[in-house]
């Protein structure tokens, strides 16, 4: 434990806005001491983006939180942390609070919960301004409106007085960024700022952050697990694994010529668009298709309003032995279709035929018999298995429900399935909470396969997993599909994942099919604007390639008339202007966009 006297530290001017030196953090938990960060050193300079990459448990979030002095009470911290030359670890309470928001600001991951739901946006934005003495009262209001228009919120004078729940997720993240900017901090720490957002929204937010560094010369510490985001944003990269920094260097170096094993593994695991090339389409012989959806309409009823059409006339099909990738962003209706295909949600109209039989018109008993031939894998490893049942029982559940096999034959089958999903056989006696996320998803897959299904519905099965885990699970999944030859409806928001697996692709937007066709066609040569937009927004883990893609995207956006990205500095109205006229004008390209890294 370092003992430091309470001397008023002189600001050290070494040119960095944020630096860690030998940072070491331990936590006391129920299970003993956890060594989260094991002595790391990092620095961020003004106008530079340093990306801190790692998977869960790497310690990256802990590192970033320590810079603000916000770690929980059971943490023991050693080492030096410097913000804008001032030493954080020796600061008094009051100095720390002065620093937060003023010298360093933080943008968190979950925009939906980052804002206080009972306070208006104005209250939350103005309090930082008044606290750090930047502006008061009416002046503060004006500055807040200025900030909101800078980050691209339309109609800011009116929206300033609204509440967080009246904004979308992407907009809320913009507001959070505006709040972070409000006191002109020297460094911004962004902890997975786009992980919870759709890929198109992510691209916009990243544009915004990039122009921060270009226009305002802010230093940015970007925490992320996505190599694509790193390639898009970072000047320099540090890779963290289990509390250590295993590799550090410029983005180009680390991403194209990784030296450490872990970095190599991480980069290999990232699914890449276009890596698979063209494949043969699946041919199915006689007989009904695995799944056939015709003109499906699903509605949700709301009190006092029109029913909401989650799925609006969708038609698609899955042949036996074929993997169909169902792609879309949030709200596209892809999960709803999957659930409808499983008979979990009733259809308002249209036909859903599984293996030739229309489930929208079936009675319970024949439907139950049909269910024997369907498997399902869901997304969230934390809740996909019943925590009270041992793993073996979870896997054997379908056999139990349909009364197939004897106790012994079921046990054998469970063992066989565990082999197939590459888990040790003794896992059958363990409980789900003892397994990691990836292991639990493998168990889910084993359960889905237990009755040799002819149709498997997978709803984002790997989205909640770390990249490297996802890669191995997907590889295994592909092998299993070849082995068992089931038809699969694979739902995902990640185009690269779809590219790895699917034979046929269906792109959804707002409950309608935008485009569908053979995988190679749709992903390499999309016809529709939305598909193009989706493809362009997905970042790839090579900085030069990503830059080229980004410029392509800007061109494309200009063509379709939407160039709403980056800081609107030219448009930020002066205070006098605010009285009377509304903000916003023609979008102009911020100058820094075509600049280099």
């Amino acid at each position, binding site marked *: *434990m370092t003992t*430091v006297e*309470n001397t008023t530290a002189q600001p050290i001017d070494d040119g960095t806005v944020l630096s860690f030196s030998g940072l070491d953090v331990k936590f006391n*938990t*129920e*299970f003993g001491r*956890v060594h*989260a960060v094991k002595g790391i050193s990092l620095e961020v300079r003004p106008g530079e983006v340093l990306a801190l990459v790692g*998977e*869960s*448990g790497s*310690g990256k*979030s*802990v590192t970033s*939180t320590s810079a603000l*002095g*916000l*770690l*929980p*009470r*059971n*943490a023991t911290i050693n080492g030096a942390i410097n913000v804008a030359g001032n030493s954080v*670890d*020796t*600061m*008094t*309470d009051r100095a*720390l*609070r002065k620093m937060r928001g003023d010298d360093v600001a933080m943008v968190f991951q979950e925009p939906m919960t980052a804002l206080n739901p009972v306070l208006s946006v104005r209250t939350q934005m103005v309090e930082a301004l008044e606290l750090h003495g930047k502006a008061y009262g009416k002046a503060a209001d004006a500055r807040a409106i200025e900030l909101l228009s800078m980050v691209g919120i339309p109609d800011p004078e009116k929206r300033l007085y609204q509440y967080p729940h009246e904004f979308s997720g992407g907009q809320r993240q913009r507001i959070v960024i505006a709040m972070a900017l409000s006191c002109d901090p020297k460094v911004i720490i962004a902890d997975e700022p786009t992980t919870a957002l759709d890929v198109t929204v992510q691209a916009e937010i990243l544009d915004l952050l990039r122009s921060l560094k270009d226009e305002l010369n802010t230093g940015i510490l970007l925490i992320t697990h996505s190599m694509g985001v790193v390639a898009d944003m970072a000047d320099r990269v540090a890779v963290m694994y*289990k509390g250590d920094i295993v590799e550090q260097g410029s983005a180009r170096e680390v991403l194209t010529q990784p030296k450490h094993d872990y970095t190599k593994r991480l980069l290999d695991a990232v699914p890449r668009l276009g890596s698979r090339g063209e494949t043969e389409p699946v041919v199915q012989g006689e007989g009904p298709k695995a799944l056939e959806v015709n003109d499906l309409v699903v509605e949700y009823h709301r009190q006092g309003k029109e029913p909401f059409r989650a799925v609006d006339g969708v038609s698609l099909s899955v042949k036996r032995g074929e993997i169909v990738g169902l792609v879309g962003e949030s709200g596209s209706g892809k999960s709803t279709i999957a*659930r409808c295909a499983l008979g*979990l949600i009733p259809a308002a109209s249209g036909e859903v035929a599984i293996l030739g039989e229309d489930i929208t018109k079936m009675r319970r008993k024949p439907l139950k018999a049909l*269910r*024997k031939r369907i498997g*399902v894998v*869901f997304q969230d490893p934390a*809740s*996909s298995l*019943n925590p*009270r049942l041992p793993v073996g029982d979870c896997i054997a*559940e*379908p056999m139990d*429900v349909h009364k197939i096999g004897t106790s012994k034959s079921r046990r054998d089958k469970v063992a066989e399935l565990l082999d197939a999903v*590459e888990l*040790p056989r003794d*896992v059958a006696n*363990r*409980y789900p909470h*003892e397994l*990691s*996320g*990836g*292991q639990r998803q493998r168990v*889910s897959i084993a*359960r889905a396969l237990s009755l040799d299904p002819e149709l498997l519905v997978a709803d984002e099965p790997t989205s909640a997993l*770390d990249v*490297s*885990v996802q890669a*191995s*699970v997907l590889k295994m999944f592909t092998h299993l599909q070849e082995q068992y030859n089931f038809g699969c409806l694979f739902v995902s928001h990640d185009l690269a994942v779809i590219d790895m697996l699917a034979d046929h692709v269906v792109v959804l937007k707002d409950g309608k099919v935008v485009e569908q066709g053979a995988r190679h066609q749709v992903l390499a040569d999309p016809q529709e604007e939305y598909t193009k937009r989706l493809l362009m927004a997905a970042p790839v883990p090579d900085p030069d390639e990503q830059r080229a893609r980004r410029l392509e995207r800007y061109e494309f956006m200009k063509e379709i008339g939407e160039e709403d990205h980056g800081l609107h500095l030219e448009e930020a109205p002066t205070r006098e202007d605010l009285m009377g006229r509304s903000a916003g004008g023609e979008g102009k390209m911020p100058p820094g966009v075509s600049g280099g890294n």
Partner: protein
Amino acid sequence: MSEDRRDSAMQGSPEPLPHAGSEIDDPQFTDKSYSQGQLVRRRFFRHKGAIAGLAVLLFITLLAFTSIGVGGISGWWDKDYTSTGTVLNGGQPTMGWFYLGEHPFGQDSTGRDYFARVMRGTQVSLIIAFVVGIASTMIGTVIGAVAGYFRGWAESLLMRVTDLFIIIPLLVFAAVLGRIAGDSGIFVFALVLAAVTWTGLARLVRGEVLSLREREFVSAARAIGTGNWRIILRHILPNTVGVIIVATTFAIASAILLETALSYLGFGVQPPDISLGSLISEYQTAFTSRPWLFWFPGIFILAIALSVNFIGDGLRDAFDPRQGKDG
């Protein structure tokens, strides 16, 4: 580290805990493995208040039932709670620091041994409390589960009944029912009380079921073709066990307070049977002249309710240590 620094660090928000195990899909188990039951038990026994409560409750129960016996089986105490006799020494308690004496709790105005009476009252109150607690739990669980899972009429019923209980206080309703059922014996009375105390638990169970049925393993079970009842019994209810057990203990504690209050008002246990509440009502005016007649039953009620409440608190912390000390 400087004092101020630590203070400030203490104000930070709890982070999602860094996982001690590896996330690179490693089929080895680096964590020490604990089954859920073991975890719960471990946490429970660390809760000092709960252990103390458990000890006190066991002591009182054993004392009450073994001292004067119950249901025909006789106990080790030589006097019973009905026979009158001569009043010795103004009926004062003969209990000292190291000896019990003839009448450790004293005698009442007709010379009956007060210890025996208090023991009998404790028995009655304990029996009623446990029966009410368990019966109301069973009713509440069934109705709550049906309301939460199937919704529809069960849910409406539950909501309306809850509304009713917002308007009619529990005590009032129970008093009226107690008046009807008071002299039909302890068990009938207990069941009648259970019939009015299940709503809180039902609402609790309904809430849990509502959130559980959205979980993916329930959706998966439905997709597999599992029938509704199997889902409720095998998937949903086992995951509500923690909440239910905790609620039952608190239900028992409030049952004992309800029953003694009713008996005090005269709408509960009727003579010749004794309840701790009726004892207090009988002798409340004697407080200045013969305080022991007043103190003992009250202390027993307090002790029982307090220990059950502490046990409940320990159970709650054991099942859901979200606000745990170590972050």
